[in-house]
């Protein structure tokens, strides 16, 4: 079975992705490597909507991701056509996972070289986060990270994902950004963020909004530091 070979120049995009499932919101954050000077930033999109209520972020080969995302988008609409209901997040995750698995068990093909974080809300209003990997397995998560330094981020999340942390939407967003800031160099301008609130479509954060959140986080950090030093005194 052919594997993507680094020597051939297939450098997988393995920047960190983080996904968080809040009470009324789901958040996807991605690390954005600084682009070359002459490259147009807007053509590089890491967070993709699969339907109005589901979106995904991937880590791995961008070209493979394009194929998978396209198939998933078509499946979302076919499902609506055949059964009148929008897909559940679990259904589309299972579809993507089954697709990936097929390619691990066929002749003449190689597996898709991507891991994906799929988030969204079901019809019953429950938020969901799933992760798939190239083998075709999928699991539900409360919060997870994929890509480079996923382990560090996951450890951070394990320490900091509490009921309070996700109690309101803003806190969940901050948690995602804080998790990314653990591993991202040079702060806010290397982060891309998207959220879905219940019954609302996908919202991509603009650079300004991210900066705003980052400044707030830094303020909170400073205040926490001050409190600590006061205690120590």
């Amino acid at each position: 079975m052919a594997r993507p070979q680094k020597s051939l120049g297939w450098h997988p995009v393995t920047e960190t992705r983080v996904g968080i499932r809040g009470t009324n919101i789901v958040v996807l954050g991605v690390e954005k490597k600084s682009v070359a000077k002459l490259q147009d930033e807007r053509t590089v999109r890491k967070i993709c909507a699969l339907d109005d209520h589901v979106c995904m972020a991937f880590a791995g080969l961008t070209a493979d991701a394009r194929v998978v995302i396209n198939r998933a988008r078509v499946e979302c609409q076919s499902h609506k056509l055949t059964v009148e209901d929008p897909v559940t997040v679990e259904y589309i995750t299972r579809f993507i996972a089954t697709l990936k698995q097929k390619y691990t068990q066929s002749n003449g093909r190689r597996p898709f070289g991507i891991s994906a974080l799929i988030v969204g809300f079901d019809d019953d209003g429950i938020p969901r986060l799933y992760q798939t990997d190239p083998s075709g397995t999928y699991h539900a998560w409360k919060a997870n990270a994929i890509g480079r330094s996923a382990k560090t981020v996951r450890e951070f999340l394990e320490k900091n994902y509490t009921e309070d942390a996700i109690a309101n939407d803003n806190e969940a967003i901050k948690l995602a950004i804080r998790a990314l800031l653990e591993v991202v160099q040079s702060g806010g301008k290397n982060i891309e963020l998207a959220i879905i609130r219940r019954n609302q479509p996908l919202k991509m954060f603009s650079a300004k909004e991210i900066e705003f959140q980052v400044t707030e986080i830094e303020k909170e950090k400073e205040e926490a530091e001050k409190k600590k030093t006061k205690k120590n005194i």
Partner: protein
Amino acid sequence: MALQDVCKWQAPDTKELSLCLPPAGSWAVPRGCDPQTFLQTQGPSLAHGTTTLAFRFRHGVIAAADTRSSCGNYVACPASLKIIPVHRHLLGTTSGTSADCATWYRVLQRELRLWALREGHLPSVASAAKLLSAMMSRYRGLDLCVATALCGWDRSGPALFYVYSDGTCLQGNIFSVGSGSPYAYGVLDRSYHYDMSIQEAYALACCAVARATHRDAYSGGSVDLFHVRESGWEYVSRSDVCTLYTELQELPEPDQELKAEDQELEAEAEASQTHLEPATPPRAGESGELFLGPREETPEDSRMPAETETP
């Protein structure tokens, strides 16, 4: 993928609705013959006439049907069951060709069961209706005749869909299907309102079918009454139409003295229906009729008749 293209190998499409019936166009028919013309000229005259109705209201969905299966002028079965359960929360009233209805309902049952196993929950009534109409529309032009109302209770509450074999799939509050449907519609449109009580709904359904069987030659026998509630479907009663009709005739006329409660009920009934007919005189005995509950509940009737009753 390159190898696949070279070999022109097609992945088996497992996502398509799995039908173990021959695809459209490959039914075994005499060579050089168009199935539709064949059936029209040489085939048996298939069972068609019926009165079925279904309506949704606050407390669920009522489905009622007569029990006469006719084949032209011959009554093939006077006690057939035209309402087929699909699963705990879904029923279908059947009309058209009995054989087609029976077959397609079995296919629908299978598809819904597979869906439930894969997804972990049953699909909504809208999904079931869509699935059925999509499956049947592939056989369009081959003289399939299935006119059915799917009655169910799903996450969105009571749901009612009309599906026809040419692919029509309509949502509505009242549907009546079959040769007796115009007569049934007349009765239903007069007295239906969403906030009826359960007893009123039972009475209305039985009344509509009984009156339709009185006028339509191809409907008769008994009235089967089903009720789909939140907890599932329930077989309410099977009442003989002749007895029902006689009882309906015996109810008091409005110019006779009504009891005090009947007068109140009439006022209520009028008030709820004034938006329909503002200028007419008081309704003829409707309020009295509305309390015709299920009468014929003999021990055999309250049991669900065995599947062998299905024509």
